[in-house]
């Protein structure tokens, strides 16, 4: 129905857009904002303008690996960090006891304010228009997308389209034995796009995710459960000075399930869509429903529950860790047996949702589809989960759509440059069978991909794209020059045994035998800047002349220099594989030695380099050796 040659575009109602973004979630917002800020005329089409930038899962941003992504988005000139800062009610730097690569910022957010801040932010971008309606399909001419068609039959023209449909494509919500169509609690599903894309030759799949019940905070007995406060010295996501740290914070709480809770939940297993086969989509292993947890890990007699406030003022509370699709009566009965929840009132039951996704191996490194030119996919439609994962894909799709229609080179981040690079590389090469979430362990170079240096890594790139402001670029340059000056100062600052040995012993560090510099002292594992500033007055004065940010970044650099060096060497080595290009014309089927799985995968993904080929799932080292032999190595 969409393959007709000519269309009547309603030129009175809509201008010709450069880019239409379908969907107003985390991916859609970043995509629309990025392209518009770069100069494209953008239309954001969404089913409901009141639910732009909804946090459909827990009211929090960041966390391990995800916090790093938010910092990266911010460094490039995206908005997720700024919006999270403006709506945060608590800040914690997770993993502070571990190494600097693990430090992960996380905010608890006011759900309503988060959405509001995003909406207002988008409204401030001049090139960005809105249209509220369900999009029924895209218009394709000669393997190229040229616009969209809405459910009312309106046709809107654009040079490129980004699809960010989230969980809405044929979304199906399950609560116990009940099931109903919907993209989110109380919102309808989107129909038509999957079917059309399949007709165009796209392969689709089905995934599942879930959320826990939300309850009335006034009915929780907080005296019975453990408080989890925000950091005493909270920080924030954004590198820009546009946002401020919190002066006041709200606490979260921790409680646990118990054998009785598990027993009650088990009563409902028969009526669970998870166990009776009604849910076919694959759910994430790392974000299991509570029924999944007690089923798979029967030996554990308790599971952790995080009690998270939904905002500054609302009494609604999110029961993180209790995701379930069991019947609502079972949910209610079981939740009241949790410590502190004896008299709890439920606001909304938990539910599971199934939705369509498109295996991301059908995408190029720019997130453009291989089948239809100028069509981009971002977010859960690609099989990912999480606001941060979605947002960064939206940003990259928006940037690349703009570049493509302006005939500019694509913007691709490598695995050693950013978590964003790891995410997209994983998606397009390995695909995913379950909702893909970022972990630090997915990033082989995580030592380099830290939250503290995201600005140094990426702001110059964002600035070149015209996304990161001049002001941001100046901060980064200033930070770097201060770091260099500071480290040079430490190297030239000599300390003698006579002056510092007494103080060294006070901080439990062994004495020095001869004159050395402060830089070397800082390399000692037991010495941080706090200790270093205690061993000599002049040092103290010198150190205090620098900002906390510069001091911390320099300290990481100095202490982990050898690891960072090793990592850089490894990247250089890997680059050799990346430089081995595979010709577009190579017919993998003509290589009998390759395993049939490798042939199939190579044919689908069409790796450009040997390095990329080696990262495709199911491809063995033997396959790579064989390819090497064919490539004449």
């Amino acid at each position: 129905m969409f393959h007709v040659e000519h269309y009547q575009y309603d030129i009175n109602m809509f201008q010709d857009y450069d880019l239409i973004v379908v969907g107003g979630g985390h991916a859609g917002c970043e995509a629309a904002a990025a392209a518009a800020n770069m100069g494209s005329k953008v239309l954001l089409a969404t089913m409901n303008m009141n639910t732009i930038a909804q946090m459909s899962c827990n009211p929090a941003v960041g966390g391990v690996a995800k916090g790093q992504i938010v910092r990266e988005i911010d460094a490039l000139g995206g908005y997720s960090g700024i919006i999270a800062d403006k709506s945060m009610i608590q800040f914690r730097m997770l993993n502070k006891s571990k190494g600097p690569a693990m430090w992960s910022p996380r905010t608890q957010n006011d759900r309503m304010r988060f959405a509001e801040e995003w909406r207002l932010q988008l409204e401030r971008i001049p090139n960005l228009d809105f249209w509220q309606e369900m999009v029924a399909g895209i218009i394709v001419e000669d393997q190229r997308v040229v616009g969209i068609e809405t459910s009312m039959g309106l046709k809107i023209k654009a040079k490129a389209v980004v699809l960010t449909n989230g969980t809405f494509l044929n979304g199906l919500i399950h609560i116990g034995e009940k099931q109903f169509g919907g993209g989110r609690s109380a919102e309808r599903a989107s129909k038509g796009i999957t079917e059309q894309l399949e007709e165009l030759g796209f392969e689709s799949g089905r995934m599942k995710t879930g959320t826990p019940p939300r309850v009335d905070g006034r009915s929780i007995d907080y005296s019975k459960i453990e408080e989890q406060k925000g950091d005493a010295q909270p920080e924030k996501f954004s590198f820009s000075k546009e946002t401020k740290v919190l002066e006041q914070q709200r606490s979260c709480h921790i409680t646990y399930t118990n054998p009785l809770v598990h027993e009650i939940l088990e009563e409902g297993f028969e009526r669970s869509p998870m166990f009776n086969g009604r849910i076919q989509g694959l759910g994430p292993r790392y974000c299991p429903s509570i029924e999944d947890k007690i089923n798979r890990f029967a030996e554990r007699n308790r599971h952790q529950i995080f009690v998270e406030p939904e905002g500054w003022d609302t009494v609604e509370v999110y029961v993180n860790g209790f995701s379930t699709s069991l019947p609502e009566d079972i949910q209610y009965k079981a939740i009241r047996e949790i410590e502190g929840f004896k008299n709890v009132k439920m606001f909304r039951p938990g539910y599971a949702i199934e939705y369509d996704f498109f295996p991301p191996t059908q995408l190029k490194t720019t997130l453009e589809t291989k089948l239809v030119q100028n069509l981009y996919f971002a977010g859960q439609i690609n099989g990912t989960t999480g606001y941060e994962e979605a947002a960064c894909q939206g940003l990259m799709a928006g940037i690349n759509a703009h570049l493509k229609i302006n005939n500019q080179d694509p913007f691709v981040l490598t695995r050693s440059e950013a978590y964003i690079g790891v995410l997209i590389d994983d998606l397009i090469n390995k695909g995913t069978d379950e909702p893909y979430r970022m972990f630090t362990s997915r990033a082989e170079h995580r030592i380099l991909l830290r939250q503290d240096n995201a600005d140094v890594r990426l702001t110059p790139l964002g600035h070149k794209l015209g996304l990161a402001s001049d002001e941001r670029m100046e901060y980064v340059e200033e930070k770097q020059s201060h770091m260099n000056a500071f480290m040079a100062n430490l190297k030239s600052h000599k300390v003698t045994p006579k002056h510092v040995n007494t103080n060294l012993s006070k901080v439990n560090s062994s004495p020095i035998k001869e004159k050395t510099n402060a830089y070397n002292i800082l390399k000692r594992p037991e010495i941080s800047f706090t200790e270093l500033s205690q061993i000599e007055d002049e040092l103290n004065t010198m150190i205090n002349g620098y900002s906390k940010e510069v001091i911390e970044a320099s300290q990481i650099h100095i202490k982990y220099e050898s690891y960072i060096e090793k990592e850089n060497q490894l990247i250089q080595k890997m680059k050799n594989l990346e430089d081995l290009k595979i010709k577009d014309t190579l017919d993998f089927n003509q290589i009998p030695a390759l395993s049939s799985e490798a042939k199939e995968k190579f044919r689908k993904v069409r790796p450009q380099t040997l390095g990329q080929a080696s990262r495709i799932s199911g491809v063995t080292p033997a396959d790579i050796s064989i390819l090497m032999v064919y490539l004449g190595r």
Partner: protein
Amino acid sequence: MLDQLKETIIALSTAPGVGAIAVIRLSGDDAIAITNSVFRGKNLLNQESHTAHFGTIRNEEGEIIDEVVATLFIAPKSFTKENVVEISCHGSPYIVQRLIKLFLRKGVRLAKAGEFTQRAFLNGQFDLAQAEAVADLINADTEASHKAAINQMRGGFSEQIKQLRAELIHFASMIELELDFGEEDVEFADRDDLKKLVNQLLSVITTLVSSFDLGNVIKNGVPTVIAGKPNTGKSTLLNALLNEEKAIVSDIAGTTRDFIEDEINLEGVVFRFIDTAGLRDTEDKVEAIGVQRTKEKMKQASLIIYMFDLKNDSLTEVNRDINMLENLGIPFIKVGNKVDEAQADLYAEMQKDESTLFISAINREGLEALKSKLVDTVNLDNFKSGDTVVTNIRHYDNLVQTQNSLNAVLSGLGDNITGDFLALDIRHALRFLGEITGQITTDDLLANIFSKFCIGK
């Protein structure tokens, strides 16, 4: 490259030269069909795999070139996983040449060095480690070397590495678990247990690494130096050893090969004498073995035969030399030459040390004792028990890198370094082990985590 793989290749599989029989091997899709086109006897196209058929091979004119036995291996049940025919013919270079020429005219191509093995590898017969072992097997010319290659081919080496990796993957998952899911209710990796595990791994890998020395000995021979003052009789001894060897070799039928000068094979162990040119240099101005140049030469050796002159040397000189050798740290055998003309006091004094041997190189006296001493010193016990021996330099490099990474883990544990840096070194170790048999991916680590631990909110 692709086209080349489709071609049927041919090569003489036995050693060139005259012998009772010679074996010519063909591999490729058309190997059986092409053989059948020149073969008179049964129709080879209708025969089962692993069967041998007597017949004649005739040229285009119908003239018989030779009576042969053709053994068929039908794909994929062959070494290369392709159709293979082995033709046993009479061992005359002339016949072999005529047969191969006939096949070349029929469209078969002469195989390049190692091409059969390459095909076997490309067709998935071996993993990389095994393919290298096959190459070694082809080059193996001593009993010990052959045994090591066979052992590796059976996957013994791969198996041991795989086991190590499985343990290390578990270790890595534990660390990743506490890194990525530290905020949750998970148990942390016990650092003492980790330390124990790394130490266990290290001891196995260290054994493998040190087996390389032995492995290298098996493959390349023991670099051996005969040291001593000029005119002690060094070159006489060398010639005596070499000549004996030559005689033994030529006594055994069918083992004739190019005699490699300066190498002897004793009970399967090859001893390779280095700097023998220097030994034969009668103008050698070297006064004593202690001078720098000689020392440098000796450092290249794995074994030193220290030879002194019972007739002319003084006890002081000998003791000084022995002292120097002890400091060098390379195993050495003390040999007193010219026992038939020995000074009585020096002889008596040296006899106090039971490990000293006394010979007369010129009369070939005491050589048997020296030879068994040579074999004993190299001590192949642990190899002969069938243990895995690393003979491949690439494996050795990767094992050493693994060892370094594991040592970095240990020192990191000592410094109480945080998990992300520990994980870095563990991953490096896994990567180096992976270079030998296969890689592990993050997905493997995550799968291990998800199957064993309950995590996720």
